[in-house]
């Protein structure tokens, strides 16, 4: 009987050491403060990695263009917004002749398909995705996303 408690302690200690030394890293907290977007494929890969790692996302500033894909890739309950959060939406484009930026309709449809339905509805109410960036912030944003503590 006396040996059982120490044996249990040894097992628990070994388990703790095993857990502590396991390669799995803890989920991180990613803060977005000023992100103007970029290549859609790169952002897709980046946010898929965040999603798979279980990371939390804090939007604490500008998050425009491809950055807004985070809304549709990372689960809703792992995203929070601060009063500084401003989301900017516009159409996707591809480089054309003489540096002209040409709206890419398939890519724009992909962007729309990625967004959660409330975001799509908000975009539709504001004229859809076009050249001009439309911004979502403040109470309208807080109605859709949890405010960070």
């Amino acid at each position, binding site marked *: 009987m006396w040996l059982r408690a120490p044996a249990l302690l040894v097992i628990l200690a070994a388990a703790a050491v095993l857990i502590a030394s396991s390669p799995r890293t803890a989920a991180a907290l990613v803060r977005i403060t000023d992100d103007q977007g970029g290549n859609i494929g790169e952002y897709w890969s980046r946010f898929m990695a965040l999603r798979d790692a279980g990371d939390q996302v804090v939007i604490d500033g500008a998050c425009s263009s491809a950055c807004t894909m985070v809304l549709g890739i990372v689960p809703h309950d792992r995203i929070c917004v601060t009063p500084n959060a401003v989301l900017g939406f516009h159409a996707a484009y591809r*480089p054309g002749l003489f540096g002209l930026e040409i709206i890419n309709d398939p890519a724009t449809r992909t962007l729309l398909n990625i967004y959660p339905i409330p975001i799509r509805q908000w975009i539709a109410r504001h004229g859809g995705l076009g050249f001009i960036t439309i911004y979502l912030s403040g109470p309208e944003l807080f109605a859709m996303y949890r405010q960070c503590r």
Partner: protein
Amino acid sequence: MGKRPLAGAFCFGFAVLLASSTWAATLEPGQGDLSVNQGQGFQPVNSRVDAKVGDSVMVSPGGTATLTYDDGCTVTVQPGSVATVAPLSPCASGSYAQTNGDGTGGLGGLVVGAAAAGLLGLGIYEVSKSPSSGTAPASP
């Protein structure tokens, strides 16, 4: 009143489902032999089929096939090659969504291009309307 939370939960669940859904494409046979591997080895295909992310498409030498992604992006599978259905449409992955700091998205390039075209047009107009000294009527 009691239906609202349920509807909200349903919408949220639907949104999460959509967000986590994988991209798909439609495969259209052209010429030659076409096979698709959807996880159970390559199977011959003779008519249009839906392909999922990760499916492999093999076209015989001299054959053709077309993959059309959900966003309308079309990719031609080259003869004698194997293509894989990508998780993100190739049209989207090669595109940009970047704000230029002026709040106009990609409008900056369009404005510059339009201004350049306008200046060019104005220049052509001015050159064409200005009287040449050789053809001007002599004043009495």
